[in-house]
């Protein structure tokens, strides 16, 4: 393949296109693909989006460039604020989160979109791998209108049959009413976006299934790297390629330092 965009750019553009104007986008730390995607959507087609980074709320559609931070914490992000999310009471208007969109990673993600940031190993007191912890994902995934699972790697260790621990409930053990039965008001995970493909959740049983294959990736490639049987709705389309305009905006107004270009696509 000879496309001149990277996988990370492809992923960012896919996510950006799926975000709608007027939505509130909540982004945590250390997710450069997502940081780029929400900015791209905001300047491309989301003048009424609100971005929530690190407890600040902003709309920056009027700015020519929205550079990504080298790291997420200091004043270079919060300078854009119009307000602090609930004046330091970050969980005070949860009821409105049905308009909010969130993004989550995972040490493990299972076939029903449950996510594990706690750790790996059968004995919680003696984990083989200790993860970073749930951050705010249990609460956010409970309430937001929908969320995206975004992974940096697609391997059988990451995409597993069943999470050793669940720190964010996706569709549990399956079924379209799995969340309603537990009283979780949020809409659950919509897509799982990885370096190989995009997956969604089947309407009936909410099993993860192939939605789109990144250019040059086959269904067999994905299955070989996935720890559970992927159902599919054949034929699986190819993930839409970024347009020249999208790449131009992404590179000249968002990802000025080239974080997403640092490794080119295969």
């Amino acid at each position, binding site marked *: 393949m000879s496309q001149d965009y990277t996988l990370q750019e492809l992923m960012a553009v896919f996510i950006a296109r799926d975000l709608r104007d007027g939505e509130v986008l909540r982004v945590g730390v250390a997710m450069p693909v997502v940081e780029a995607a929400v900015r791209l959507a905001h300047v491309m087609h989301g003048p*009424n989006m609100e971005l929530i980074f690190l407890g600040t709320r902003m709309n920056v559609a009027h700015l020519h460039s929205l550079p990504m931070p080298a790291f997420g914490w200091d004043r270079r992000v919060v300078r*854009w604020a119009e307000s602090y999310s609930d004046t330091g009471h970050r969980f005070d208007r949860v009821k409105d989160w049905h308009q909010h969109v969130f993004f989550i990673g995972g040490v493990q993600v299972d076939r029903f979109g449950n996510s594990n940031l706690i750790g790996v190993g059968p004995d919680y007191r003696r984990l083989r791998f200790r993860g970073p912890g749930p951050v705010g994902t249990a609460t956010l995934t409970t309430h937001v209108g929908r969320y995206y699972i975004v992974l940096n790697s697609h391997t059988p260790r990451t995409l597993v049959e069943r999470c050793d621990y669940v720190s964010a409930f996706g569709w549990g053990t399956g079924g379209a009413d799995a969340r309603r039965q537990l009283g979780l008001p949020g809409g659950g995970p919509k897509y799982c976006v990885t370096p190989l493909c995009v997956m969604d959740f089947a309407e009936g049983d909410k099993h993860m299934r192939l939605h789109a294959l990144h250019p040059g990736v086959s269904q067999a490639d994905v299955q070989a790297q996935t720890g559970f049987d992927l159902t599919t709705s054949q034929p699986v389309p190819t993930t839409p390629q970024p347009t020249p305009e999208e790449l131009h905006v992404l590179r000249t107004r968002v990802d000025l330092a080239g974080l997403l270009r640092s490794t080119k696509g295969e």
Partner: protein
Amino acid sequence: MESTERQQRILGETDAAAWVESGMTIAVGSPPPMALVRQLIRRGVSDLTVIDSGLSLDLLIAGGCVRKVVSYYAGGGFGVAVAPSFRRAVEQGEIEVWECEEGILATGLQAAAQALPFLPWRGGVGTSLPQVNPDLKLMTDPIGGETLIAVPPVKPDVTLLHAATADPYGNVQHIGGPGWLDLFLHRAADRTIVQVERIIANEDTRANPWATTIPSVDAVVRAPYGAHPYYSRGFYVQDQAHLQAYVSAANASARENRPDDLVHYLATYCRQPATHADYLERVGIKRLLSLYEY
């Protein structure tokens, strides 16, 4: 809502007040957004459930808008122990009271804001509140076994607030802090309308984002002197003479069954003026200018 520009949220006072329909639950902040309150009376909205305190509540009752009061305080401040129309209407059984208390109300509003079916509160344990309001349930806490009050969500359809300023996108800033429960009333509500003394530029908001007390409210209404006869911090103080005139009229109606003055007050100040500006003209610019803060 695809659009190429960020949409403003400035609304005319009539359009904004039209969000409130008869039968709804509304919350009124502090100082009360009197321009909007008077609009409701003028429109003849009725059967409201009202979360409000003090004399704006009293005026809504006098104006015939209220079926039920979520009540924690219906006094009138110095010299008025109990709001007169509230007192009469409750004693006559004309309106229903959902008896609560400030901490309990804040808890119920917080439960609504946090999408929780209840929140526990200790204040009120041992009192008559769970008896006179059966929606407040005594519960045993599942961890320590203590007795608490389980407060259900209190959820306004529309919250009406008054503030100093807002930008066109609904970022509200106060001078001298938001009133009593304003932030709780906003967070719990489906929609919030804020009337302000001044609309400011979005750049002014960004100059001090911490000063944004409420972000992204649903509608902003420009209403200079809009809290009159109440105070608006940073702009003017309370018009005691006007309030006193209202209290006298309401007292005469409630206690002495002489409703003429109250009917006259409602006609003059709430029903006849077609707009807030018309109301201000009746009050008179000299009176308004005399209400300077210091």
